[in-house]
């Protein structure tokens, strides 16, 4: 992983994290919006402008790749690089969580 990717994506936005998390399965943008809504009990509603921008940026940076198009919706999947970023981020969040538990008891 080059320095640019690390700088831009670690730590990453909540939107970015959920996109990578969801794209371990093939999915389109709106599918991710629905999945995240369900995962967070409706707390997080990802917006289309944010989604569209993040997906095109992540595709350009090689974190996700375009698989096929279905009814005018682009379907994506995570790449190896994307999985590496997701792992890094997951470790960071786990440490954060452990530290919160430790400090607050």
């Amino acid at each position, binding site marked *: 992983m080059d320095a640019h990717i690390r700088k831009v994506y670690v730590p990453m*936005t*909540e*939107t970015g994290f959920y996109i990578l998390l969801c794209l371990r399965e093939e999915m389109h*943008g*709106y599918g991710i*919006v629905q999945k995240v809504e369900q995962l967070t009990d*409706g707390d*997080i*509603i*990802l*917006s*289309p*402008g*944010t*989604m*569209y*921008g*993040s997906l*095109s*940026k992540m595709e350009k940076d090689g974190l996700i790749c375009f698989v096929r*198009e279905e*009814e*005018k*919706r*682009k379907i994506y999947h995570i790449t190896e690089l994307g999985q590496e970023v997701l792992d890094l981020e997951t470790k960071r969040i786990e440490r954060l969580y452990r530290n919160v538990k430790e400090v607050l008891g």
Partner: protein
Amino acid sequence: MSGFGEMKKEFKVFLITDYEEEGEYLSRMHRRGWKFVNVTLPGIYFFEKCTPEDVVYQLDYNEEGLNHKEEYIQMFQDCGWEYLMEYVGYTYFRKPRAEMKGDEKIFCDDESRLEMLRRVFQARMFPILIIMFCLIIPQFIGLMDEQRGDRWILLILYSVLLALYTYICAKFGVHYWNLKNRLKS
């Protein structure tokens, strides 16, 4: 129903940095019973009389989206945003508040708001800066030394242009730093 189908025109100037204000203006008009229909140069907004409703209007600036228009618009439609039109690079969307869960916008974090500002800057501000530095400022300086009789008219014209460009640049800067600072805190 009587009164419906009635149209109204309004002239309004929004600078390229004022996309949020423009959306708020369209929402305000809709709440007063004037539904946005079209906008044409140099800033004439067309409205149609309608039942007053709380509708959120939002502008996006995304050249890549416009190059892949079908899937771009599909994404917004899936999320309940009605695609309206494009005007000088901006795409207009609206969604009734009654269909929203909470306070919805087309961007849900400051990072993506900043990204959009960057896209506007690269596509629209950058050319303006080039024009300013390569044309207007040299012309302005050149005119100061000349003794032509009409130079005052040109000097005034260039001063107005320079003031306008400086103002737009400043607005851009303020907007940018505000978002940046919000991200840091």
